[in-house]
């Protein structure tokens, strides 16, 4: 019997319990490709696109715009044309949303782990158990939740580790030093602390510059590099953003700045801003970010550009950029080594890995698989 394939509410990040259906992006009767955005869903953190995990013919839309549905609720049904409507009716009627057991909740809680790296406590998440290992490094002022839409997808074929850089997220508010060399050395020590001899590095923004520096300084622990909206490849950067982000004390100050990170500013929810403010208001964070930002970026310039020397390393490099990146211009992709693969993604800004997660995940998977 031909298979009926359910489309269900995804779980983005560890804390997501439900999502609000904003709108369908495809019609019944459409042929759907893997990775195609099929529906827009709003969570308390951010609005994102549900991307098809399987290919097929969309036979039935179940979820209606405006509905709030739990994770794994049935959103729609795909089936080949020969499946009778009655079978689909039966499937829909018989579908039960799997209940998250207490065990799963415990698993979610323990998915965040902490490790001591040279006296600095670092929070990280680890998912999947396949070889190879992928390390995700977020950018300036960010945290591991910047990989909300990437972590699960990448863990299908690899072990994914994402850390909060020192001074960021829920890691200790202490920096191991201010330059890229010190930060790269710290991340290398982190890999050692979690028993990972080498990994494919995926860096966003400042995280990309750190990854590039690691490839130069500790080539043995770097299998390949994927640089997303990366710092360290050219000299321009919107220091109005970095300085404004540090200075912003209220939601009102912060909102226009965070909106600059996205091609579609309406993706920025109040919860996302509140979470950033909660981090920024912790004692010591403003001073630390101000010092770090001031050391790395000044008057519209990036002071260190290790990405331009990646040709020396012989590592495989993937460069991904949102075409509408207003923080670091996409034209910096041209400074990657000539052998690098470059993907410029239309309709996305600096947070391209969130805005166009499906395309970024597909590019990363291909790159990691080699």
């Amino acid at each position: 019997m031909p298979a009926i394939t359910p489309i269900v509410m995804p779980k983005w990040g560890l804390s997501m319990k439900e999502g609000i259906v904003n709108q369908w992006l495809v019609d019944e009767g459409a042929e759907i490709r893997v990775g195609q955005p099929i529906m827009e869903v709003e969570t308390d953190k951010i609005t994102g696109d549900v991307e098809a995990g399987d290919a097929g013919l969309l036979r039935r839309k179940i979820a209606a715009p405006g509905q709030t549905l739990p994770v794994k609720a049935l959103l729609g049904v795909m089936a080949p044309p020969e499946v009778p409507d009655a079978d689909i009716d039966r499937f829909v009627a018989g579908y039960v949303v799997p209940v998250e057991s207490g065990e799963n909740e415990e698993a979610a809680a323990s998915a965040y782990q902490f490790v001591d790296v040279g006296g600095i406590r670092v929070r990280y998440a680890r998912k999947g158990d396949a070889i190879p290992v992928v390390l995700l490094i977020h950018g300036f002022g960010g945290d591991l939740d910047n990989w909300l839409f990437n972590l699960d997808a990448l863990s299908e074929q690899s072990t994914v580790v994402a850390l909060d850089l020192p001074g960021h997220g829920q890691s200790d508010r202490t920096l191991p030093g201010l330059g890229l060399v010190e930060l790269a050395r710290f991340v290398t020590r982190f890999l050692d602390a979690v028993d990972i001899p080498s990994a494919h590095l995926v860096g966003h923004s400042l995280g990309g510059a750190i990854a590039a520096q690691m490839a130069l300084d500790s080539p043995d622990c770097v299998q390949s590099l994927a640089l997303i909206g990366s710092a360290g490849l050219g000299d321009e950067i919107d220091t109005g953003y970095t300085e404004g982000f540090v200075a912003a004390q209220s939601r009102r100050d912060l909102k226009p700045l965070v909106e600059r990170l996205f091609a579609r500013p309406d993706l920025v929810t109040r919860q996302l801003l509140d979470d950033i403010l909660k981090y920024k208001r912790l004692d010591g964070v403003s001073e630390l970010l101000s010092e770090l930002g001031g050391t790395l970026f000044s008057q519209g310039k990036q002071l260190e550009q290790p990405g331009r020397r990646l040709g020396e390393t012989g590592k495989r490099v993937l460069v991904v950029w949102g075409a509408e990146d207003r923080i670091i211009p996409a034209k910096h992709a041209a400074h990657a080594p000539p052998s690098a693969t470059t993907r410029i993604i239309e309709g996305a800004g600096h947070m391209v890995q969130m805005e166009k997660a499906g395309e970024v995940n597909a590019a990363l998977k291909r790159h990691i698989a080699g």
Partner: protein
Amino acid sequence: MARKISIKDAINEALDQEMARDPSVIVMGEDIVGGAGSPGERDAWGGVLGVTKGLYAKYPDRLLDTPLSESAYVGAAIGAACSGMRPVAELMFIDFMGVCFDQIFNQAAKFKYMFGGKAETPVVIRTMVGAGFRAAAQHSQMLTPIFTHIPGLKVVCPSTPYDAKGLLIQSIRDNDPVIFCEHKALYGLEGDVPEAPYAIPLGEAAVVREGRSCSIVTYGMMVHRSMDAAAALAKEGVDCEVVDLRSLSPLDLDTVIESVEKTGRLVCVDEANPRCSIAADISAQVAQRAFPALRAQIEMVTAPHTPVPFSPVLEDLYIPGAKQIAEAVHRALSGARS
């Protein structure tokens, strides 16, 4: 790292972390040290409801037990604040504040102005507010409007553990006198609170629920009643926005107006008595500044203009509830100008 703790523990942690950070922070109050070392008590009582429990053992020379004379020790705290300390005075119930109005209204609130800006008075007076504790007319009042009326005082009233910690830390670091109002019925309420110290600026409201049909503007325990009302209304398809003012002075009127400009309707909810209340103040300011945005009459939900009754049945009726709030939202919706 965040974990779930109660408002009472969040306040205790804020005091502990500020005392550890700044040796000029001292804590004064009735029965905060009493009981230390006595049989059956391994520690000082930590005040009438034990909010400062454990601090005396850590900072024995910076917790001061005071005589049962609010006028004396609140005056002493204000004087100490002018001479370089950052005192946090615990005044059991806001109802007792009347005996030290001169110290608060005429001295603390005025020093900065009367000494040409040269004097600063970084004092915090922590005090319990609100009804629901079966403590009758003299221990249950919501007197926030009285203090909000006085220029020179800041007035804070948190509704969650996260806000309680961050707002108290900011109040201690603030260089002006702050009346920090703790709702006694909320002490046990738990929520996520980071372990690390953090400060939330005074004068920033929180939009605790977003919606398009009607704005409910409130503070303190009424935030929770309003959220209950909003949840019930959501089932009927009415989509309320709930604004928690958090601090009453300074007041974040911009957030209130932004909300009303979006929804066109306003319900002000206040546990205080109605005359000259926070609800009345917000109503007047919105009517003046955002009249064109209003699509219906402003509704107020407050306690009645009576003292808090001792009868439990009457006290429950006295405190505004989710049902009354939902009814007010319905009135605002049906009174709509199209």
